[in-house]
């Protein structure tokens, strides 16, 4: 949880407590968490409000509600009839009949679960994005029906299924156009990061429209495209073209020429382009292409919102449903969904957390095989709350406290000096000033101080660790230093060491 750095002292104590309990008394902690959850299951709002592991503050980050929950349910039923496209699903569906019992020691099963949870395995149906998908599809369909160009901009946070949905839409469009008997649609999917030059996108488009006619050297690909779209074409080559530019913001140049030209292609009288741009920034079109508005060709914007906890839970369940065995406790999945939704709503992260929880379980079972030969109780062969909590704390826990505690002593003194210096309204100081404070502390404790070069080195190391922020300056001594962690964190971390207690009080 990135926001943790700013939270109060008490939240730290709590997180630390989780981290320690999981190892030492994992069973106990599971025992005390599960009943509490169960009690509150009837009211989900209460769970998120009172849940120990989700700080209250973060609740405001939660997306307010699931869009059209009823409708998406219907979709799921429809979509589940679809043919399973992916080999993994086929393989798993084969063993559905056997109803094998899940055991973390079975490598085959473990592998199947891991694979189902891997980012690269696209699920057969994309849950919770049906609405957006339909809107994109309708847009493309409308454009193709009317044989007119158009542009669309899709934005959303990382890990919200934008690219995946686009793949699906392209497939749907292909299916639809063959069913409707229309000429097939040329599709060009470009990830803009893989272009070595931004203007390469035009040559790629041209190559898609007129394959094999790259020999034209006297005009640039862009000019060629512009000519092509501003003149009436003979009907044979008038197929529609779907251009999907993933990570579109990589096309932003200083003068924004490339992006502008790209969108302008759709406004040309005989253009056949349907341009769909995908990026993170919500206002890319507004910010960088104000001129488009005046030309009345502002792209339509579809926003992919961060997943809510229900959505994440559903997606995780859907991914695991193809397996014939239960690997995760439902509660554990819910915990994961809640935490991830509160932090970022990034699906990739949720999958990673699940996998790391699975690995924790794997290590645990592997460790327990040696001493006790008898089979484990059925309860501990699935991923429980405590595993998930451990994985989550590994992911989201801010390691500031442990980092500070493990630092060498002189670096701790520097942090201590900085905390003292920035206690008031002062927010930054130069390295020279900080050095003076450091020398004072050293003197008061009769420690021989490190030299100035050593001191600046230590500041750089602390900068690397994200504790101090050292600015740029020509001279070492004049660099501005500011603290990047909360003072209360430092106090809390250094309290443990008697040496510093007096200093900070």
């Amino acid at each position, binding site marked *: 949880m990135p926001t943790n750095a700013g939270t109060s002292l008490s939240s730290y104590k709590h997180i630390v407590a989780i981290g320690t309990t999981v190892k030492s008394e994992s069973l106990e902690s599971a025992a005390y968490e599960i009943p509490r959850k169960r009690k509150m299951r009837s009211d989900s709002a209460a769970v998120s409000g009172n849940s120990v592991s989700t700080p209250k503050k973060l609740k405001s980050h939660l997306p307010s509600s699931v869009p059209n929950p009823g409708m998406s349910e219907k979709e799921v039923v429809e979509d589940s009839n679809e043919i399973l496209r992916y080999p993994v699903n086929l393989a798993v569906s084969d063993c559905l009949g056997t109803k094998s019992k899940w055991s973390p020691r079975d490598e085959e099963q473990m592998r199947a679960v891991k694979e189902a949870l891997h980012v690269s395995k696209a699920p057969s149906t994309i849950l919770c994005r049906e609405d957006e998908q339909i809107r994109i599809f309708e847009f493309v369909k409308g454009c193709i029906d009317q044989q007119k160009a158009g542009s669309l901009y899709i934005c959303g*946070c*990382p890990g919200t299924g934008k690219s995946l949905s686009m793949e699906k839409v392209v497939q749907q469009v292909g299916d639809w156009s063959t069913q409707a008997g229309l000429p097939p649609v040329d599709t060009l999917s470009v990830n803009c*990061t893989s272009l070595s030059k931004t203007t390469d996108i035009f040559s790629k488009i041209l190559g898609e429209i007129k394959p094999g006619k790259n020999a034209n050297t006297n005009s640039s690909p862009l000019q060629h495209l512009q000519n092509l779209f501003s003149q009436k074409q003979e009907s044979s080559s008038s197929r529609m073209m779907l251009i999907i530019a993933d990570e579109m913001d*990589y096309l932003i140049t200083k003068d924004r020429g490339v992006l502008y030209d790209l969108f302008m292609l759709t406004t040309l009288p005989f253009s056949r382009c349907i341009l769909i741009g995908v990026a993170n920034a919500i206002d890319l079109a507004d910010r960088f292409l104000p001129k488009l508005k005046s030309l009345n060709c502002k792209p339509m914007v579809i926003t992919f919102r961060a997943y809510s906890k229900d959505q994440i839970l559903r997606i995780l369940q859907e991914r695991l449903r193809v397996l014939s065995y239960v690997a995760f406790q439902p509660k554990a999945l819910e915990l994961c969904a809640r935490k991830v939704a509160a932090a970022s709503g990034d699906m990739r992260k949720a999958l990673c957390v699940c996998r790391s929880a699975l690995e924790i379980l794997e290590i645990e079972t592997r460790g327990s095989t040696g001493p006790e030969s008898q089979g484990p109780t059925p309860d501990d062969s699935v991923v429980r709350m405590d595993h998930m909590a451990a994985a989550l704390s590994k992911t989201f826990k801010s390691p500031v406290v442990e980092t500070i505690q493990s630092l060498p002593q002189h670096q701790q003194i520097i942090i201590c000096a900085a905390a003292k210096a920035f206690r008031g309204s002062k927010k930054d100081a130069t390295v020279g000033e900080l050095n003076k404070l450091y020398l004072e502390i050293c003197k008061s404790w009769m420690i021989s101080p490190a030299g100035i070069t050593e001191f600046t080195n230590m500041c750089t190391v602390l900068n690397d660790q994200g504790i101090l922020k050292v600015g740029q300056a020509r001279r070492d001594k004049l660099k501005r230093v500011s603290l990047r962690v909360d003072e209360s964190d430092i106090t809390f971390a250094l309290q443990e060491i008697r040496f510093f207690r007096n200093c900070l009080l």
Partner: protein
Amino acid sequence: MASTPRAKTFKSPTKTPSNIYRKSYLSPSSTSHTPQTPETHTPLRRSARHVSRKIDLGNDPIDAPGNDPIEGMNLIRKRERAPRKPTTDVVPSKSKKTETPKKKKKIDSFTPVSPIRSETIKKTKKKKRVYYNKVEFDETEFEIGDDVYVKRREDSNSDEEEDPEIEDCQICFKSDTNIMIECDDCLGGFHLKCLKPPLKEVPEGDWICQFCEVKKSGQSQTLDLPKPPEGKKLARTMREKLLSGDLWAARIDKLWKEVDDGVYWIRARWYMIPEETVSGRQPHNLKRELYLTNDFADIEMECILRHCSVKCPKEFSKASNDGDDVFLCEYEYDVHWRSFKRLAELADGDSDSDQEWNGRKEEEVDDSDEEMELDDEVLKSKRGGLTSARGGANSRKGRFFGVEKVGMKLIPEHVRCHKQSELEKAKATLLLATRPKSLPCRSKEMEEITSFIKGSISDDQCLGRCMYIHGVPGTGKTISVLSVMKNLKAEVEEGSVSPYCFVEINGLKLASPENIYSVIYEALSGHRVGWKKALQCLNERFAEGKRIGKEDEKPCILLIDELDLLVTRNQSVLYNILDWPTKPNSKLVVLGIANTMDLPEKLLPRISSRMGIQRLCFGPYNHTQLQEIISTRLNGIDAFEKTAIEFASRKVAAISGDARRALEICRRAAEVADHRLNTNKSAKNQLVIMADVEAAIQEMFQAPHIQVMKSVSKLSKIFLTAMVHELYKTGMAETTFDRVATTVSSICLTNGEAFPGWDILLKIGCDLGECRIILCEPGEKHRLQKLQLNFPSDDVAFALKDNKDLPWLANYL
């Protein structure tokens, strides 16, 4: 082969045993450059040789004394007879027993098609083997790393009976003690007196025999070499046979005995003659040039004829008197990619961490030197996969072998000739470049890395993943990953882990971040292309699942050191690299190493989202860990007092926790102690004590300004004292030159020094300003210029207090 300019059909009647002949080896140095094969830049080899001696790598580096050549020769001959026994069909009884099965084995292990010798690696089933480092076989010692001649085929030893050490003169067909000279063109030997006109001594510079001279000048009627007298056949030396392809040369890579039938085997690493490479013999190839290949074969010891000597160019240029079996090897030839790599470059072109890494291999070999350890090492039939794995990860592959080779020859000479004292040993082992035998205090992290990599590559699918390793400098990040990879490599050889290819990249070594694409592509395919093309190919490879060339479906592990240097303005390089593992079929595992803890958070959210959550932190070492690291390194060397080590490690742990620094301090302390013990011979304690460590720490941690202040001129000292005095008086850090000058004049006056005058004082102020002992206000130099001490006044006081010239300075400080 066709260009080997000699016909070998002469007969010689007798074989005279000993002679002294003289040859000078010269190289065709001025030749046109051809692009296919690298050209050897070898200094000319041009001295004469009076004693013909067999090269014996292991045993006698000392030259045989020149005063009694005949006796020397006999001795040598006696020794030489033995290794030839097996080859001359005077089969000893032991080998006779296994005669018939061996024949069969030999035949199937010797396929006549030379370029694919690696296929002859026997698919050994589970067999017990005992591995040795040294084997005495037919009274000759063979050691790992030795170069040997190997019989090529059973049928090609028609003239096997004679194996002349000393070749016959090309004119008189006698080999005797007269000095011989070697033609630089045909490598034939000639007695000086047989030449027309006879030569008195070996000429300086190139020398070409009359026959070759005629051939070269392009005259119509060629001057044929004289026919040998009837009944005598000119014996071909091993060297001739090798260079004409009838023999093979190889380096011994492993030695073992099959426990079942007691037959000794070696794993041979082949040398190739230029004719066998893809580009054939080029004009710039030397006559005696060989290429080391990455091609291996398991062969029986019986096939070894005897030692030869393959040298790197530097040694080769010196080895002019070493006889006929000297060869030059400067390049490695990759039989899979058909590319050349320079061995010497590979050896020294690495960063220190890599060298540490490579050094370990040698050490480990040395460790097990003494006893024949009984290993139950079982080689499974994954062999083929392994060799191709090497081919894939060629960025490492070349280095491994290259260094191994050079090191194996160089190290013994240095180490064995000189008995090291304990302190010297300690110094050597504390060098940063010396690779430790084990890595203490990082076992948890290494375990985590191992389980991460194994978990990623052991599945059939090999789901792509990503791990970010961070930690402050000197905490063993890179070395841990590399040793994990080494252990994995060993497991691959055992067959318990499926083969993979490993690409290691250091961000600092890339010319630009984009270059990483080319480097990765070269590592995977062996071809070098521009980064744009490489990016395209890699995208196809990882995102779309197309395979590069004939590469099979192996997972790829990519280690990127100093990951933060790949951050470009729009971060597209990192995006692409971290996006590949999220694609299906990519089979890519990325390990990123950097110092910064919060690098993923500093990156764009889309990149940190793809980076996943696998993080591993290498914290700074605490003093007990540092102590353990140092004592592990010094294991078995009694050079340090325990308290000294503890002192050093505590000192370092308090400031940075950097293991490199702790080692440096200890090494420096050992040097200080060495110096102390040398000057004071009476010291009974030969250990490094606390005081030495203290001195080393003073040198390293203490800022140099005190030293500078102690050694500045008298007037400068007075100037500084005045500034300190001024500071004490006013309490203001900043002062003007005007005030300081006034103080200086008053100080001088009271202590009977002559006031130097303002000009000189101003100059002194400027000088101190340039040393940055004081800070001067930039701009013009004038009276009201503001001055400030750059260091705390305590430091100045400390530096100037006990001054012998100016004892009164202390009054003002």
